[in-house]
């Protein structure tokens, strides 16, 4: 398998970041201490802080569980980057990681479904999904993206860049408005 340099992943994400944004945190997501440096944002309103935190946690879990690039003890944890950018009126949180091409369509479809749903529909979607029995080999509950959309109140933007016949680079981007 081709190894992708984490710095290179980070650069890919940064290239897309607009200059108006102030970079708050770049997390190299690896095993164990992923949220050791959890964002505090002491100056920010409580509810916004909680939203940013929740989206950060869910995107991090996505990377750990779904990145095709593994690292750490027994090569069990996915690698990728999480970037948080403070803009004038919003926070933008971005995850970047490598995924297998055959998983791309599933992510794109999920985002599409979520992005056309109203707040009430997202709520029902979340509650119905939570009732479902999780398959034995599943690493997540299938709730992450729905929760991200619920918390942010905005679309979950998926950008895919094909690397080769097997792998693609997936970037998920979410905006949380400061007046939310």
């Amino acid at each position, binding site marked *: 398998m081709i190894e992708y340099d984490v710095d290179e992943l980070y650069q890919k994400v940064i290239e897309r970041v607009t200059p108006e944004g102030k970079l708050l945190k770049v997390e190299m997501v690896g095993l164990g201490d992923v949220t050791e440096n959890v964002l505090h944002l002491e100056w920010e309103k409580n509810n916004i802080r909680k939203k940013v935190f929740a989206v950060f946690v869910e995107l991090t879990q996505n990377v750990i569980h779904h990145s095709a690039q593994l690292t750490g003890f027994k090569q069990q944890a996915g690698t990728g980057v999480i970037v948080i950018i403070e803009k004038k009126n919003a926070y933008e949180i971005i995850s970047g990681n490598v995924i297998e091409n055959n998983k791309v369509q599933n992510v794109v479809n999920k985002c599409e479904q979520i992005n056309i749903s109203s707040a009430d529909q997202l709520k029902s979607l979340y509650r119905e999904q939570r009732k479902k029995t999780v398959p034995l080999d599943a*690493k997540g509950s299938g709730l992450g993206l729905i929760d991200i959309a619920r918390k942010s109140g905005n679309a979950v933007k998926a950008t895919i860049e094909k690397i080769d016949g097997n792998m693609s680079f997936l970037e998920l981007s979410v905006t949380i408005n400061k007046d939310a």
Partner: protein
Amino acid sequence: MENLQIQKTKYTVGVNFMIRSGLLEMEGASYPENAFEFFEPLKNWLEHYLNVINPPEITVNLRINYLNTSSSKCFYDILELLGKYQKAGGALQINWHYQTDDEDMLETGKELMADAEVEMNLIPY
């Protein structure tokens, strides 16, 4: 069977399941790397406790300030288990404690109660 006690960490709830007193408590925030792995032994302990030990009276105290999505799924599964026990006539009381201004955790408690079909007292602190 032994009491189940787990120290609280930044990512995982503190657990205090006491066999004799029937007092089962969880407290803190939950967003471990693998929630299913963390909660699996808790579910197994509870299943055994409810079905085999079948104690005369159980009080569950939950004082949670954050659940990530996979932890929320695990809480759903645990509460569903407790709800079935209640429905079968088991003496089991659940208290969902939430911080007075924490609307998220109040809402989470209400949703879990409705979805997992379980009776809980929603108590602000």
